[in-house]
């Protein structure tokens, strides 16, 4: 990196905002997708929007590529600098700027951690709905980039439904105010266009979030099933019955065992083949009626026991187990491949069965913990990345799972995004013309393609390239 540029950047963000030392840069060689690694050329952490703008203008002059990064908890390689460049992280921008109780919104800096937003507004009786499993670490800015989900987006929607406005720095260093607290801004829906862009349109530095009132009552149910099939069928029936709980999650036996053996032991029963974890919230009488209906459907589909959390502490423990499930998988193997696919909710059972067969045929350890209510599956494959043969089988299984889901009317990602991991699978869902339309839209924001290059859209014009698996042999060779 040019020393003069480093000096100029440090003058903007201070020494604490520049990471040039290679050893420290190693921490940014990947996000939660550990299979692809590359050490960035530099890591920048601006302290506010102005600093971010000034840095971006300097980087533009130098023609450097920029990889936006929140907490690095993404699972699709969206924050991995696989082509080098400057990692642009928001972790120093953590102020809650404004909370409006009456108009129910909060304006925060992009580096605010998801759970901290709800903490900041809970004394107003409000909360921020999107709750990814990583909400103790992931940032609001990262959630915006990925249009993140979480268990409760079954009722409240993914991140895009909770974002009212954004302050965005474009690749040219332009500061754009998109949307705001007004429900319908004039002009195009640029906020909706930006959310889920995976860092390829710009960097969000401030976010105006919609808040919702805390419900009067929340009930948490745990339904125990002898088989995963039974749990899947119960969910399909719940959806068909138009019941509207706020979250419907499934954990299978291997997941239960991993969670119960970990520090996050939630009291999940070891005699169940699968459990359904369901939240119902709303007015007290309404919640009771919905719970009764859910219990009936669970029984009809083979549930042999139904438990209701008796207090907030027990409810918290049950959810901590669910949200910590990915971490608990570390007991099974050193690495975890978290697939993220989505299918019509009428096809849960058949796709779960297919994923089991796909992994079984490749001698892989599969566990399932997923947002069943949204049809968002997470087949989790435990593996050891030091075993190159196993890595190849994992990637092959991941690709095959995507293929099966798309064939069933599903899609590649429900909430983790496309990133690097699924980029070369995009042709399974979209035509050349569809992808061209996306590229044209992107070019309007970033004509030089310096924002997070090489993500989401496959290399064009060559099917061989598009179908090529991830370059396993090149991994771990960060420079």
């Amino acid at each position, binding site marked *: 990196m040019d020393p003069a540029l480093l000096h100029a950047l440090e003058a903007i963000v201070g020494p604490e905002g520049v990471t040039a030392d290679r050893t420290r840069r190693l921490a940014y060689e990947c996000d939660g997708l550990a299979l692809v690694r590359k050490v960035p050329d530099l890591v920048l952490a601006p302290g506010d929007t102005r600093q971010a703008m000034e840095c971006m203008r300097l980087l533009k002059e130098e023609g450097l590529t920029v990889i936006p990064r929140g907490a690095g908890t993404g699972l699709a390689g969206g924050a991995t600098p696989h082509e080098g460049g400057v990692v642009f992280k928001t972790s120093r921008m953590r102020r809650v700027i404004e909370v409006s109780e009456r*108009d129910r919104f909060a304006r925060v800096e992009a580096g605010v951690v998801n759970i901290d937003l709800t903490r900041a507004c809970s004394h107003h009786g409000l909360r921020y709905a999107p709750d990814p499993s990583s909400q103790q670490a992931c940032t609001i800015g990262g959630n915006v980039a990925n249009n993140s*989900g979480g268990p409760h*987006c079954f009722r409240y*929607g993914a991140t*895009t439904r909770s974002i009212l406005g954004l302050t965005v720095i474009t690749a040219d260093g332009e500061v*754009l*105010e*998109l949307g705001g*607290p*007004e*429900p*319908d801004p004039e*002009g*195009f*829906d*640029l906020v*909706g*266009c930006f*959310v*889920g862009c995976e860092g390829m349109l710009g960097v969000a530095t401030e976010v105006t979030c919609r808040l919702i*009132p805390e419900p*009067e009552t929340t009930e948490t149910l745990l339904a125990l099933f002898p088989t995963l099939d039974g749990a899947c069928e119960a969910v*399909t029936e719940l*959806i*068909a019955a*138009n*019941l509207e709980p706020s979250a419907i999650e499934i954990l299978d036996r291997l997941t239960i065992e991993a969670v119960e053996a970990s520090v996050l032991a939630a009291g999940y029963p070891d005699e169940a083949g699968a459990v359904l974890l369901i939240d119902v919230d*709303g*007015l007290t*009488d*309404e919640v*009771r*009626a919905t719970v009764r209906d859910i219990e009936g459907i669970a029984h009809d589909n083979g549930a042999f026991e139904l438990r209701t959390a008796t207090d907030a502490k027990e409810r918290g423990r049950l959810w901590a187990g669910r949200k910590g499930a990915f971490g608990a998988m570390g007991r099974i193997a050193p690495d975890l491949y978290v697939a993220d696919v*989505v*299918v*019509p*909710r*009428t096809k849960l059972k058949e796709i779960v069965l297919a994923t089991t067969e796909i992994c079984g045929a490749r001698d892989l350890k599969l566990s399932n913990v997923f*947002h069943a209510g*949204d*049809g*968002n599956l997470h087949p989790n494959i435990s593996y050891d990345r030091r075993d190159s043969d196993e890595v190849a089988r994992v990637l092959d299984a991941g690709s095959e799972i995507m293929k099966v889901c798309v064939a069933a*009317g*599903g*899609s590649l*990602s*429900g*909430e*983790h995004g*496309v990133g690097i991991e699924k980029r070369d699978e995009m042709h399974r*869902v*979209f035509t050349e*013309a569809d992808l*061209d*339309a*996306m590229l044209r*839209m992107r070019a*309007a*924001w970033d004509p030089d393609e310096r924002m997070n290059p090489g993500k*989401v859209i496959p290399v064009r014009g060559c099917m061989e390239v598009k179908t090529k698996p991830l370059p396993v042999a090149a991994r771990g060779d960060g420079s």
Partner: protein
Amino acid sequence: MSALAEQLGPLRGTLPGAEGEVPMAAPATEEALIELIAEAVAGGLKVLPVGNCSRLGGAHDCGADLLVSTRALSGVVAYEPGDGTITARAGTKMSELGEAVAAGGHRLTPDVPRPRAATLGGVVADGWSGGDRLRFGPTRHHVLGMRVLSSDGQVTKTGGRLVKNVTGFELHRLYAGSGGSLCLILEATLRLFAAPAARSCASYSCDSLEAAIAVCDHISLPPVEPTAVTLRPDGGAWTLIATFDGRAERVTRERALVEERAPGAAWSEGEEALAVHVTARDSSPGEGETPSLRISTRPTRMQSAIQALCGHAPESRFLAHPSAGTLEASVNTQTELDALVSDLRHLGASVRVRGAADESAHPRATLALEERLKDAVDPQHLFCGRP
């Protein structure tokens, strides 16, 4: 134009524009539509995509040489009751969609006024949200995917038919509400919600705007969550209608809470409540009442916005959704309009004007980006609507 019309079948009518009558074509098939668009590009025409023209509010007066209606391209493509989604062609009437999903125990949102006239494509392109956005959010949040026709003749898709999906850029969010300025919507998929088992409506007659807004604030406090709240002037008084629906247990409890907090309402239940709700919903200004305005502001600023409206345009017709922060109005003269819109923007409201010049419009900070998006998506500048 006439040669083109003869080639593609009879025109379906005309609408008056500043430069004379604007002809309207309504191709019967997608193939004919694609051919028509190619001819329009070749002929250097400006095209405004329309649905059933139920909500144009003068939007066609934008220099269009030709209105292209999708009204003949109608029908449900796929309704998946077990998955809670519906996909339909752009020309499908909202009432037809509503009836289709009711059979599967669903409700359609947006709950737009006069759904027998409005088409899916028109509603989505317009970004038109019904009063039920208070509970369910704006229309753009429920559009899961689209198929669209671009000016280069390409038919592309964005999103899909799944309730949760982050595969690729969400171009449908850009197209929804773009007012026919970027592309022509052929098909859209909407997320559905459970049909309500019960419904109650509370009707208030208030002496003053302040009193009406106070009632509105009281009845919208948690844990009560009305589906829609409408407010309109009624002679010298103000009529406020609040709709509560959902599971019977919910509606019963909400009614009890509202009666306690804001007594004095006339209540209706069931079918009677539905009739009250529909009457309130459909009292929004209709087609032909121009110039028309759509105002969006923070709920806490709605009283000031209505006061500005009443001050500058005392004869205007309007329907407000105070808790949602939106209002639709028609005013009588350009003079009224200019002063009003300027005032509203000073209040921090966003305003969309149809059927008249927007003299107080100042260039948005995002205008350059919006122009680049227009150039990127519609390089021929064929489509002449505005968002």
